[in-house]
């Protein structure tokens, strides 16, 4: 079953159309990447899926239910989570408070989940009471992921999780994303670091100029010469 399906979505800002009728699918349990150059419309796509922007045309389905234009606060209750690329933490809150905010809509006791998140990201454990704004880039990204995981989402949308990180951290973050997927979380991410993203993905799409340029098995894309030349910098 497709956990996420996007059908002919047209979207943009103000009067500027960014996505010109885009379709894609994420199968349950898979990691799917969207790669492509800067300004391709990757962030716009995620914002449209997550209801931060309304699609001008087209439909978005989550588990075959039409969610087009539903606000984020509804989508998190349905089992989706979204980690924006920038400003993805609350800098004046502590680490712990950031995670608590991730559980804001939970009525039950979220503390066991909090401890699970700390086990997943041990570096955060010692910094529970630190201001999130004082964290390093890698820790911020882990906190952002931790926040999104507080609700045990079924589908995680990630916007460029490796941006601005040192190379060894890029691997650490992507490994962690792969771990999450092994635990059953479906993942749709957009990445500029295309080579690394494809390595942990099942399938991938290439987005350029608001249109889909290629799609297919991630492994095959890694081996494809033309895609390698155009989008993987080889």
């Amino acid at each position, binding site marked *: 079953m497709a956990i996420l399906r996007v059908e002919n979505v047209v979207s943009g800002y103000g009067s500027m159309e960014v996505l010109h009728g885009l379709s894609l699918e994420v199968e349950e349990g898979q990691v799917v990447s969207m790669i492509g150059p800067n300004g391709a419309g990757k962030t716009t796509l995620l914002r449209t899926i997550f209801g931060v922007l309304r699609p001008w045309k087209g439909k978005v389905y989550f588990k075959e239910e039409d969610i087009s234009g539903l606000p984020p606060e509804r989508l*998190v209750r349905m089992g989706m989570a*979204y980690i*924006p690329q920038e400003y*993805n933490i*609350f800098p*004046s809150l502590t680490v712990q*408070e950031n995670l608590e*905010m991730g559980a*804001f809509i939970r009525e039950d006791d979220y503390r066991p989940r909090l401890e699970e998140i700390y086990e997943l990201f041990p570096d955060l454990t010692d910094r529970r009471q630190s201001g999130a704004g004082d964290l390093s880039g890698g820790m911020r990204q882990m906190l952002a992921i931790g*926040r999104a995981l507080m609700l045990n989402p079924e589908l995680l949308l990630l916007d460029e999780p490796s941006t601005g990180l040192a190379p060894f951290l890029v691997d650490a973050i992507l490994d962690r994303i792969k771990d999450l997927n092994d635990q059953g979380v479906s993942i749709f991410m957009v990445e500029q670091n295309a080579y690394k993203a494809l390595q942990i993905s099942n399938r991938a799409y290439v987005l350029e100029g608001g249109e889909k340029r290629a799609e297919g098995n991630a492994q095959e894309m890694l081996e494809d010469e033309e895609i390698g030349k155009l989008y993987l910098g080889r």
Partner: protein
Amino acid sequence: MPELIVYGIILGSIIALGTIGFTLSTKIAGFCNYSHGDLMTVGAYIALLVNGTLFSNVGFLQSKIGPLSFGLGLLICFLPAILVSAGLAILIDRWVYRPLRRHGAPSIHFDMVSLGVAFIVRGVIYVIWGADYHFYFKGVRSMLFLPLGIKLRPDEIFIMAVAWALVAVTYLFLGRTRVGKALRATADNPDLARVAGIGTERMITWNWAVVGALAAVSGVLYGIETQLRPEMGWLFLLPLFAALVLGSIGSITGALVGGLVLGMTQQISTAWLKPTYKPAIAFLVMILTLIFKPEGIFGRRR
């Protein structure tokens, strides 16, 4: 001089209360609420109304508490003042700001509209109570003579106690409760708060409740310290602006420190300058802050 510092702390406590509310609404509602001062005025006049009509002939409510110049009645009046100011703030949001948000209006529209709201609220107060000064109580106020030549009215000790107690309560509310943390999160990053499932509209309503309540209390305290007149809150807006900028917009601690520093600066300036220059001093502090430390004392450079 020690006396001026003490007066500065008293004025600063009232300014700080107002600034905490002001900074919250600036970040959460996303605009500079020019009607904040007039919410203070509304609170002050509601206390006057209830105390002067409903309670006026009830002896035990009007007999003075110890050395203070007012009775239990005025203390009880904090409650209707809070309810009316908070309720009014929420209603104005429903009727005025929410439709603007639906249109996706730019923040300058909100600023201008809130300026209009300020004039309307003040206009209504003029119509009901007139332009005359009003007092919560009549007669001579007792005075305490403290060491270092400090003359202090017991009322002023009460004002400080209430202001600081309320600051503490607000701090605990924002720091410890679920809604309080969500308010800070929304102030920090409204888009991310939405993405985390924190409904913005609900937080905006909470914001106005807190802002209205804080404004009402600072209005009544200011009324006890001086007197009630329709433009009392409006004129209070100037030091609030300065304290907000000085303490960094959005920082609660900053609002507190900014308010205190500003209150003291204004009072101490009267050692050399006429008291009429106090608003000018507030603006001088604001302009100097903006030139030399634009992010404020507690801000982060981005």
